[in-house]
């Protein structure tokens, strides 16, 4: 990716906390031939979901269980977009540093997973992206375009995982358009290998009375950056953005989320919980824009970060840009250590320090993780979170719920 000159830098306001250095070693060319992920243990298919597995950005049919009448179709780049172009929001942005990665993805002309959920339909999709090739071989470019029809319901689970190489490079681009009364539940888990670079850009245009729920959990990768632009374009549109992130070792996780209220009566709930341990770095920039047309908009942000390591760092930017007085907007942000009083409470009840600390960290991140409604996925994430916190034994018996 380093060969592309228009990459953002840390001097760009919205990229000041991202770790872009690993990209210098990555080859920008798309990976053509993917290896077979033999022996890779994917979690069981989620009940009722059809599974699409991509290895280094290429569809891997042996592991996929796509239905014959699937709402998703894999299209060549040139065949995609015609129908969707009208539904997708071209105003949502394509220029500027924030969309540099999406532009690069577009330039690769990778195949596009085209998801069109018919009006009133109910669909469930599981998208698993497995990175196997090292960054020196190339970059994978997942690309998804989604149109959720009127009154439709889509539950979509997206996993980013690694196998083999630990330093793979991923640049994903997602464009969503939600029609009137549509609901999209989007759960994203990024658990790539410790050396991976994972960059993704998502735009979502949310129509009248439509609801877009994104739960995103970031655990893996040396450097990850998630860029989200959500536009609440229809009256009473709603967005729930729940993010959890744990940065260990020398990991850097950076999330930028802009949610723009354009229509009246639009609502946003944004919640971020992050833990940085050792020399991990976390950043969350949440930008809420309420346009003068968005009377009655309601926006709530809660960003909390826990530091537990001498070299750990955290940055939070809960921003509000408000252009109407008919609005209710608030945000809260905290960074700090574990609450001494809570720790004392547990210690005084005979729980040893390590387990007490693990419990409190667990409770902290559970604010976000518990909002993953799909039980098998939540349990999978909870087990990974426990592993990421290096406290599996301390949390034994506490993390798995029915």
């Amino acid at each position, binding site marked *: 990716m380093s060969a592309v000159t228009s990459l953002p830098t840390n001097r760009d306001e919205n990229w000041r906390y991202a770790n872009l250095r690993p990209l210098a070693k990555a080859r920008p060319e798309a990976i053509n031939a993917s290896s077979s992920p033999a022996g890779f243990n994917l979690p069981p298919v989620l009940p009722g979901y059809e599974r699409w597995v991509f290895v280094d950005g290429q569809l891997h049919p042996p592991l996929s269980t796509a239905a014959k009448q699937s709402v998703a179709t894999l299209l060549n780049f040139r065949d995609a977009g015609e129908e969707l172009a009208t539904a997708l929001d071209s105003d949502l942005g394509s220029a500027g540093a924030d969309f540099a990665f999406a532009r690069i993805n577009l330039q690769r002309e990778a195949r596009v997973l085209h998801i069109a959920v018919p009006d009133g339909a109910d669909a469930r999709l599981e998208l698993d992206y497995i990175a196997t090739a090292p960054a020196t071989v190339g970059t994978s470019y997942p690309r998804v375009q989604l149109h959720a029809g009127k009154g439709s319901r889509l539950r979509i689970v997206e996993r980013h995982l690694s196998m083999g190489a630990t330093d793979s490079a991923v640049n994903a681009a997602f464009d969503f358009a939600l029609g009137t009364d549509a609901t999209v539940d989007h759960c994203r888990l990024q658990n790539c290998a410790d050396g991976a670079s994972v960059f993704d850009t998502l735009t979502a245009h949310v129509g009248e009375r439509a609801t877009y729920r994104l739960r995103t959990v970031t655990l893996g990768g040396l450097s990850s950056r998630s860029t989200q632009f959500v536009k609440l374009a229809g009256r009473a549109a709603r967005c729930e953005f729940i993010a959890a992130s744990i940065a260990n070792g020398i990991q850097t996780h950076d999330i930028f989320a802009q949610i723009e209220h354009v229509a009246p009566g639009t609502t946003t709930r944004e919640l971020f919980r992050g833990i940085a341990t050792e020399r991990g770095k976390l950043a969350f920039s949440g930008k809420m824009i309420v346009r003068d047309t968005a009377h009655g908009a309601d926006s709530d942000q809660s960003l909390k970060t826990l530091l537990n*390591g001498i070299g750990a760092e955290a940055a939070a930017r809960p921003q509000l840009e*408000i252009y109407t007085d008919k*609005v209710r907007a*608030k945000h809260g*942000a905290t*960074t*700090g250590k574990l609450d001494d009083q809570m720790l004392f409470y547990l210690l005084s009840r005979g729980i040893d320090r390590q387990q007490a600390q693990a419990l409190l960290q667990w409770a902290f991140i559970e604010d976000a993780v518990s909002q993953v409604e799909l039980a098998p996925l939540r349990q999978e994430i909870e087990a990974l979170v426990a592993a990421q916190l290096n406290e599996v034994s301390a949390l034994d018996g506490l993390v798995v719920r029915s």
Partner: protein
Amino acid sequence: MNSEPMVQQTATAENSIDALLGKSYRHGFVTDIDSDTLPPGLDEDVVRFISRKKQEPEFLTEWRLKAYRHWLTMKEPHWAHLRVNPIDYQAISYFSAPKPKANAPKSLEEVDPKLLETYAKLGVPLHERARLAGVAVDAVFDSVSVATTFKERLAEAGVIFCSFSDAVRNHPALVEKYLGTVVPQGDNYFAALNSAVFSDGSFVYVPPGVRCPMELSTYFRINAKNTGQFERTLIIAAPGSHVSYLEGCTAPMRDENQLHAAVVELVAEDDAEIKYSTVQNWYPGDENGVGGIYNFVTKRGECRGRNSKIAWTQVETGSAITWKYPSCVLKGENSVGEFYSVATANNYQQADTGTKMIHIGANTRSTIVSKGISAGHAQNSYRGLVKILPGAHGARNFTQCDSLLMGGNCGAHTFPYIETRNPTATVEHEASTSKISEDQLFYCLQRGIDEEDAVNMIVSGFCKSVLKELPMEFAVEAQNLLAVSLEGAVG
């Protein structure tokens, strides 16, 4: 509940906003006074001229030139949430001083009566009122200080309070030691410009263990046309000392924008405390956004010593554009930084203001309370940085920034930056944005309080946590300013 009264109420509120927009700026007069004004333009000769005119020592001339050369390499900042018309820096006159009659005035009696009249109009207590109020005043007119009161009484306590020019002449070693140590010449574009062409300002030195016997105050006044004002203030609180400093500013009504680029540097040594209060009422422009002061100010205090404290309190009601972030660098262990601010923006005013709290030392604490009020077509932004560096063990910050919107055409924005690099630090930030609560308004109205008083009460309540931090001498002025700016404005 029948919605009709509420509709009427809203209509009344809109009328009140209109009335508010029609209010005139009380300090917009021009004083007809002879002045020495340099022709517009800026080059090294202008910098040398200013330095020569002020009989500065060589080190300061070189310091200015270094700043000017650095400024030439810099670009105007455009990251703030502001729309700034292009500024032609060559169209500004960088020096304007009231012309001395024959010699410089040696006492207040010798100051041009028209100047004193100006300050009387502004309510600046230069004479007896000052004695009653117990406030020592330094008055800066365009580029130069015209009068400083109570010098002798302060001198008895060992406090140096004089114009910056006097300080350069009489205390060059102190100036050389501290100037630019908090805000370096190349700190930012406007600070570099100020460092090159600053004309005057105030200088305060409070010796060790001295509690300044009175509040110190400076009034800044821009009078001449096509000029900029570039004052520099330097306050040094030696170990164990305490000083409270107040600053006020006004300017005439003119159709063109005038530039004000000031720099304030504060140094607090061990156990010292500086309280810096500002009531900023530069001309904000007319109801169509024509004219007004561009207020681009760099204010920074450094808590160098253990247990030192710097508190910024500001009421910002004026200026067409405000770009200002009074900051605290908390180096000393247990040092404390505070920032209390009320920023109102009306008509087409724009403000991008806030603070920076840089925690370097252990157990440093900071508090930020910011209240922004937007009306008309104004845009009001809070921008604040709380940075905890690795050595700041046990550091704490609490930030609260609330915005109140009055009318559907204004904007209120919040851009906080929280950066923590020490796991033992605690940072808490909360913010809210809303209009005046209809419930609160209804509660007051149904108890017979008229609408305008009700709104004043609610706004006063909204700002109370900041206004109570102001010294009493300024609290009344600040309350009045808020009342003038916002009475009757209901969202």
